[in-house]
């Protein structure tokens, strides 16, 4: 029998209406260091750098649209955004989770090495550039809608999943998909034509492990971003991978 009394979960709500990001982030940082379990930020309107470099396992709920570089260099927290997000979400993130219950902007998950970023709606350009995995750290970005150009460029590891839901016609992602990719996997549901793919990328058949992994991931995504995914099945995805891990092995002579 565990004798120790469960520490009472502590939740603090801050009203950030009109507050300058530096002061607000200092408050958030101090609360996280003090062992606060949940920080609710109300009245957010474009404040940048929320949760940057935070290493505590705190849960941060954001009501409003946070500014750029949400969760950059983040290493542990869970961030829930009950609205859209802007550019640079999860920049060079190491671990933790960011859930966006709206759309997100450009450069999501740049250089990300671990953790998850879930976006309910569309994402912009340059999403998942140079994501990389290391040992048990496998970064995952899932977007429910569509994506712009350069999705997964330079990708070295991790998973990018694009569901292609919502309005829109034609291809679900832009051009230069996976250009320079040398690791990781991109799963795309919806129309993609050959000319959109980077020259290092090819479509591979889904295997049983992919289907199981996708089923689990989709269930987690649906529950986090609060979306009904009936009709979305793992076997509807195209699996894109690089066919060389050394795409630039023959560039040089000595």
């Amino acid at each position, binding site marked *: 029998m565990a004798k120790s009394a469960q520490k009472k979960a502590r939740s603090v709500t801050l009203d950030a209406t009109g507050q300058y990001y*530096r002061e607000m*982030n200092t408050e958030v940082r101090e609360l996280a260091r003090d062992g606060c379990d949940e920080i609710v930020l109300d009245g957010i309107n474009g404040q*940048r*750098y929320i949760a*940057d*470099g*935070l*290493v505590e396992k705190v849960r941060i709920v954001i009501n409003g649209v946070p500014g*750029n*570089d949400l969760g*950059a*260099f*983040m*290493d542990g927290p869970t961030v829930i955004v009950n609205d859209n997000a802007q*550019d*640079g979400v999860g*920049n*060079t993130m*190491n671990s933790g989770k960011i859930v966006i219950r709206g759309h997100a902007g450009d*450069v999501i998950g*740049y*250089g990300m*090495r671990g953790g998850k970023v879930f976006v309910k709606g569309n994402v912009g350009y*340059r999403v998942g*550039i*140079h994501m*990389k*995995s*290391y040992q048990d*750290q496998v970064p995952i970005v899932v977007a429910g809608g569509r994506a712009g150009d*350069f999705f997964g*460029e*330079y990708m*070295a*590891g991790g998973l990018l999943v694009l569901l292609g839901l919502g309005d829109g016609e034609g291809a679900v992602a832009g051009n230069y998909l996976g250009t*320079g990719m*040398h*690791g990781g996997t991109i799963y795309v549901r919806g129309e993609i034509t050959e000319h959109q793919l980077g020259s290092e990328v090819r479509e591979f058949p889904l295997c049983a492990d992919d289907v199981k992994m996708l089923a689990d991931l989709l269930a987690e995504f649906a529950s986090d971003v609060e979306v009904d995914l009936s009709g979305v099945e793992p076997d509807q995805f195209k699996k894109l991978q690089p066919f060389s*891990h*050394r*795409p*630039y*092995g*023959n*560039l*040089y*002579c*000595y």
Partner: protein
Amino acid sequence: MPGNMVTSEFLVNVDHERCRRCKRCILNCGFGVFDFQNMTTADSSKCVACHRCVVFCPEEAITITRNPLAFREHPSWDVDKRKAIWKQAQTPGMILTGMGNDLPWLNVFDHLLIDACQVTNPSIDPLREPMELRTYLGRKPDSLKVERDDGKFKLDSKVANNIKLDIPIMFSGMSYGSVSLNTHRALAIAAEELGTVMNTGEGGLHKELYPYRDHIIVQCASGRFGVHSEYLNAGVAVEIKVGQGAKPGIGGHLPGEKIGKEVSSTRMIPQGTDALSPAPHHDIYSIEDLRQLIYALKEATGYKPVSVKIAAVHNVAAIASGIARAGADIIYLDGFRGGTGASPAVVRDHVGIPVEIALAVVDQQLRSEGIRNWVSIIAAGGIRSSADVVKAIALGADAVGIGTAALIAMGCRLCQKCYTGNCSWGIATQRPELTGRLDPDWGAERLINLVNSWSLEVKEVLGALGVNAVESLRGNRERLRALGLDESTMDILDVKPAGR
């Protein structure tokens, strides 16, 4: 048909009368030149003239000479150009090279002369009088407010964090991966002892070196290798590497062969994969984007100074102004003579401008805009001696960075083969039998000796100039004169010709 049309650059000669067949040369050569079949034999085609065998041969039995093979002279088709064509006709690809630019471009430092006091104002003897070399790097306030409180004076202005250097010389960024861990250890030990800083380069910081945190600048480059919250806080400042003097505008490529277990765990990428640094940071396409990353890093580090390293390029003054206005605390200017572990020769040798020029125009630009105090300027990429240090400071640098000079102190012979990973001196290699050759304490001692020697020389020159602090020389171009520079270069440097 001949397999290889490129003739040997050097000839290795073993004097068999002196050779006592100890085979040390075989063990020492990282390039596999030597073999033993009844006697020591040498394959000259593999020799890079790194002199490891020569230095370690107990009998001085080995000599290396430039291959005297005559080529028909041609003023525009020099031998190196012909050799490059033979290589590329044989194997398609860019010619890869290491270390700094080896073409004989004009060196501006070598055309600048330093002033001294005579008769009308006395020089200072640094042996008898204190000489201040201490330098603070970072943003300085536009003005200071001092309050008088109960008869005591109190600073009433918020001052940004600065880095304290006991000497205006720091070690430039060289990544763990391009150089060995023992090289990083030597740099860290020396930086601590000297009261200065080393820079991690873009390959992360090995856990073992975290205790040197007060003497380390951590770098964040486009590949974001080994960059995480703990790492960002493991130094006194963070540097955003935008460009490198040896290869402006292009990314990095550490081949999978150099990514062993330790490099893999420090860079946090799988063993044996290529570590590709994209040419740009894909989250920086503008000065506004740069500002965003600068402040993201400040937020993540409790507002440590942020340095932005750029290669010296044609439009450097305007770019530097943007960097200062983006909120950087330090601008690190890397000239086109800066070293590299690997770069296409075409870029190393033909792209960028000298740091002397870049430094002068950046200092001038920031002064004219009234924002010079917002940033400190580091000049690097071609600092070879204490004279270069003094001239760089007079041209406007707050401090200088040395990379190649530091490696030469530890044994590097400038063979320019860093990219092969075969460095016989144990510096630019990850092969365990080679890295063990560089004893970090020995390397650190040599770095400390070198930098202390330069410090003595800098003090001596300051004394001759009649000033007792490096601060008094900073940006003081009146104390420089040019010899053999053209009008427009002197105008750009804002330096008068000798005799005027």
